């Protein structure tokens, strides 16, 4: 304890001396500064230069003395263990930070400069490099990924056609960027195309992206291709079976013999051929025979047996059209609804439903269908066609023409858009321009793989009217064509009546089913 007291006295003396030294330095500095005020700058600088080393050495002295004092005190003073810094174990904890603070002030200062872990630095550098690589990997995949994700979401929402468009876009992007073909996307695309348009359409799409070897790797795709081959085989056998009963010269068919021949195909080869396809051939025979009830009955047979095959029983809108021709609009609507439930954006079903609603005078409901479809990119063409029909019924032919022209110019149109454009032009007394567009209309149908027989029928009927109005010579050629097709393509009754001046164009296109 005596030693401690001695040290304290010594420390006090040393610190007093230091303070006195410091005071003398400060006094001299003040003198110099007051000298500065008296504008004797050069002398003052000279004086300061002389004092500066003295000041520096004094400060150094103070610092060393302080540290020395602290160390001596800490070394000598006995600090209870619970008050020792947990880091250095020598100094007292700095409780001014917190009562339970475990470190001394010095260790705290050191901890502010804790060096970074080498492993951490290496990891961060590597991860940054990897993230640059990742960006290059991501870049080509990102757009394809986005359109695929869109496709999944759209598909979940029941918008099959829109989903098909999204998946096709993905495959287009991967093709352009040189990425390998994404199998999952091809599988989804093929599955949806199979459900909506049948295995032949699906197979056609698959073969754009994959070769036979790649197709075999996928169970889903090989099954679709097998199904397509079965359908093609069935069609070939059916054609062969009924060939002898079809009379090309008169475009007629021996219906009963044909049905029997088709039944024999099933009986002779149980399970080999697609029975629904054979029934579909029977409906075609009934169509050629002009027996509408039987045609409907066969198509209904397929619908009851395989309700998912709407691509077959309503191929080219055949069943809905058959009921509409028969005047059974409730049944036609029921079938359209059942197809829309499976494929929200189905072009034919939505179009027919809107048409029936307008025939019933429910313009608001038809407008709602158009509005809903307009929100979906892939269904905008159908929406425009419905809007054009509504405008036409309101006798706003200019609006109908504008709607269709803009849609064609901006590339969101289908065959119905052309059809509506031509009718609106005819009603607007511009059949000459309409006739000029028919070749464009035909080129579209010819180049579009999804064009159905129904599209061709609508085209030929409109073409017949335009030739009647604009080109007499061509009209007789068209009439010959109708004659050659027999019951499969009857000459439009309303056109005949119009030619006989029994009805007007307005009566054809603004009443009934608003078409020939």
């Amino acid at each position, binding site marked *: 304890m005596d030693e401690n007291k001695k040290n304290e006295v010594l420390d006090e003396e040393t610190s007093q001396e230091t303070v006195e030294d410091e005071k003398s330095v400060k006094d001299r500095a003040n003198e110099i500064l007051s000298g500065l005020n008296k504008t004797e700058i050069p002398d003052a600088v000279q004086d300061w230069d002389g004092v500066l080393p003295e000041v520096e050495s004094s400060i150094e002295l103070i610092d060393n003395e302080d540290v020395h004092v602290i160390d001596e005190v800490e070394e000598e003073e006995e600090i209870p263990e619970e008050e020792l810094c947990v880091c250095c174990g020598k100094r007292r904890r700095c409780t001014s930070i917190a009562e339970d603070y475990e470190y001394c002030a010095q260790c705290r200062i050191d901890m502010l400069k804790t060096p*970074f872990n080498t492993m*951490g630095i290496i990891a961060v550098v590597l991860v940054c490099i990897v993230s640059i690589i*990742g960006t290059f990997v*991501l870049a080509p995949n990102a757009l394809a990924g986005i359109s695929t994700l869109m496709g999944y979401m759209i598909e979940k929402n029941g918008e099959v056609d829109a989903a098909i468009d999204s998946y096709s876009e993905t495959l287009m992007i991967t093709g352009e960027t040189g*990425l*390998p073909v994404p199998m999952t996307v091809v599988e989804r695309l093929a599955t949806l195309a199979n459900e909506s348009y049948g295995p032949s359409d699906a197979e056609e799409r698959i073969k754009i992206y994959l070769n036979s070897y790649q197709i075999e790797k996928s169970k889903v795709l090989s099954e679709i291709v097998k199904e397509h081959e079965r359908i093609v085989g069935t069609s070939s056998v059916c054609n062969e079976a009924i060939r002898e009963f079809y009379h090309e010269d008169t475009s007629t068919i021996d219906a009963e013999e044909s049905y029997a021949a088709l039944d024999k195909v099933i009986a002779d080869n149980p399970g080999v051929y697609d029975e629904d396809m054979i029934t579909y051939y029977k409906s075609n025979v009934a169509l050629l025979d002009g027996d509408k009830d039987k045609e409907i009955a066969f198509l209904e047979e397929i619908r009851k047996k395989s309700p998912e095959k709407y691509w077959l029983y309503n191929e080219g809108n055949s069943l809905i059209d058959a009921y509409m021709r028969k005047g059974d609009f409730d049944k036609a609507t029921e079938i359209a609804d059942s197809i829309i439930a499976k494929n929200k954006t189905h072009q034919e079903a939505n179009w027919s439903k809107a048409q029936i609603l307008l025939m019933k005078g429910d313009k608001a409901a038809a407008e709602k269908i158009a509005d809903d479809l307009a929100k979906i990119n892939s269904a905008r063409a159908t929406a425009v066609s419905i809007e054009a029909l509504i405008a036409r019924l309101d006798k706003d032919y200019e609006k109908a023409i504008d709607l269709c022209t803009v849609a064609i110019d901006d590339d969101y149109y289908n065959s119905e858009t052309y059809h509506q454009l031509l009718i609106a032009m005819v009603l607007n007394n511009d059949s000459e321009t309409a006739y000029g567009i028919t070749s464009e209309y035909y080129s579209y149908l010819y180049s579009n793989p999804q064009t159905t027989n129904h599209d061709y029928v609508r085209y030929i009927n409109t073409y017949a009217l335009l030739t009647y109005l604009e080109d007499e010579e061509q009209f007789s050629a068209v009439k010959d064509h109708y004659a050659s097709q027999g019951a499969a393509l009857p000459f439009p009754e309303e056109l005949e009546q119009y030619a006989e001046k029994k009805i007007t164009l307005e009566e054809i296109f603004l009443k009934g089913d608003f078409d020939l």
Partner: protein
Amino acid sequence: MTIIYVLSKIISIPGAIVKGFWEQVFCRAFKSPVESNDYIRMDELCGHVGHELIPTSARSFWYNFLPGYFNFGLGFTIASGPFINLLLLDVQNTTVKTVLYAILLWIGLSLLSNIFPLREDALNMWEKIYGKGNSSTVIGKIFFFIPALIMLIGSFLEAYGLTVLFNIAMVVVLLLI
């Protein structure tokens, strides 16, 4: 529970190390003394740095937010490409490319599994922003609420290794469908 937590950190070791590094960077930036720079250790601090609690609400929020944000940014960049390629598009790659993508996916997901703060840090942040005697402004409280809540919940999920489990489950599900 610590075993599960440490295991989850070891599975996602690249992310755990990088997260620890970012935390130390922000400890320096916010002048919080770091007790240990050992990012991988066999206790509750695994994948984090031991440091003095940050005294102000704003600094505490950013300290909790920024390291996770950096990990998320890097993780998202790294994982997105392989995720789309391997899981979403199911691209038929060569074996070498598939292995490379799988490694990138693991690194990316490990970073994404380490985006939440340590539970104590998250609780301290909540206390500083919404606790008694807090100095936060009303606008600050509103502005910070959703991210602070997410970080608080996330810190609890991470404490039970659930973030890693979630990522593993996601990959498994996508591989199966």
